[in-house]
């Protein structure tokens, strides 16, 4: 096994263990920390596979922004802190669901011969990704951004209506 191969398996093991812990922790802050470790390990896996761009995006977007928001909300709400892990019986149904979808995913991948050939790492270079994203798929990118903007405006409207004031400086 090459050094990179060993790193790949090490990072994958860390990622799986951290993801498992994140799903079973009762303390929400511990769950967030485990999820962050899982995201960082997956960023490492991407880098080891020769695609640093998805790895860096994983850190910037998921570990650095989305999970910070989770942490922020948990701290702001002051949720009661649980201890230990969620009992195995409550994890049975989601576990079966996840297992079934994984089996289905891998069956689809194995059936399609194109799914087995790894993409060349050069396709993950920043310039190449940008050209594909904003050249070939510009319509989808714009559609998604409009959708997100609509969601943002809707949330703003709902939040304002409930508080019932028009904004501006508090008295």
């Amino acid at each position, binding site marked *: 096994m090459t050094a990179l191969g060993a790193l790949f398996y090490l990072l994958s093991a860390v990622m799986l263990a951290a993801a498992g812990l994140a799903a079973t922790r009762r*303390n929400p*802050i*511990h769950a967030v*920390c485990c999820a*962050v470790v899982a995201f960082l390990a997956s960023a490492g896996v991407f880098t080891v596979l020769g695609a*640093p*761009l998805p*790895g*860096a*995006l994983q*850190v*910037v977007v998921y*570990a*650095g*922004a989305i999970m*910070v*928001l989770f*942490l*922020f909300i948990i*701290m*702001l709400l002051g949720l009661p802190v649980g201890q230990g892990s969620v009992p195995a019986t409550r994890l049975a149904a989601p576990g079966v669901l996840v297992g079934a979808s994984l089996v289905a995913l891998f069956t689809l991948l194995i059936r399609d011969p194109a799914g087995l050939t790894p993409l060349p790492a050069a396709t993950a*270079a*920043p310039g190449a990704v940008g050209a594909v994203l904003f050249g070939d798929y510009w319509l989808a990118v714009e559609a998604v951004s409009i959708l997100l903007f609509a969601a943002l405006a809707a949330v703003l409207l709902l939040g304002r209506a409930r508080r019932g004031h028009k904004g501006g*400086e508090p008295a």
Partner: protein
Amino acid sequence: MTDILCGILVMLARMAVVLAVVFGLAAYMILVERKLLGRFQVRYGPNRVGLFGLLQPIADGLKMLLKEDIVADGVDRRIFLIAPAIVAGAALFSFAVVPFGPTFAVFDRPIAQVIADTDVGLLVIFGLSSLAVYGVALGGWTSDNKYSLLGGIRGAAQMISYELALGLSLVPVAMMARSLNLTDIVSAQATLPFALSQPVAFAIFVVSALAETNRIPFDLPEAENELQAGFHTEYSGMRFALFFVGEYVNMILLGSVTAIFFLGGWNGPLLPPIVWFGLKVLAVPVFLIWTRASLPRLRYDQLMALGWKCLVPLGLANILVTGALLAAGR
């Protein structure tokens, strides 16, 4: 085989040099800050330990190491112990992608003055700077103290808000350099630094980077007169010092990043490249210290209004204008 061994040796040597230089600079940056602040406030600053107080950082470090490391009752022990390390670690790790000069040759072997020359260096720095918020937020949450919690929440909100403006200010840099590689960004400024061709982006970058490092006038997470010391109230000894070292390593990182993105890196007349780079890197912390001595702290609503209503729209407009000019110039 010798090639691999040489490669590993060069890599280790580079890491050792970078770590030693950064730690040494961080320690003496504390002395520089105390000296300069003293002068700004018409007093001498530390001058008792060694000649001109030059041994003060060593005395401080020894004192911190020998102090009792108190872990208060009611804290979440594991998270309490790891939070300061996140702040210092994220800042130190960023130096892996910072180039210190152009590639030179030793025995016909090219040696790049950077630990990891990656095509996504800008994103790596950006990502790591966003990870530092975990240290502040977790340290505040785990201390089981309402002042610390308020400091942690403020830190998280502030860093999320200003990260957006920081990212928007770097987009025109990547657009003009046509690359996310830090070495390429420096070579794109061989004739004109981006601080002159992108003054708006430079201003947004400086303000939001100031907020990201949690220094006056943006030090609301540790506002002394309302939150005691904010997120690090419960910390003592070397763990407190780690938060502190993290802040100063961050100042030096900010200096390097500003030099690379906006001040033209190691490009400059007459003097050798590394001297130019060092001068530019050190100019930024001095600017930060000067700001600290000159400005009062912002109020929380002023902070949020500045970030969301001023910097973010300005950054977006700047990207549009840059894009239009670049497209017209083709």
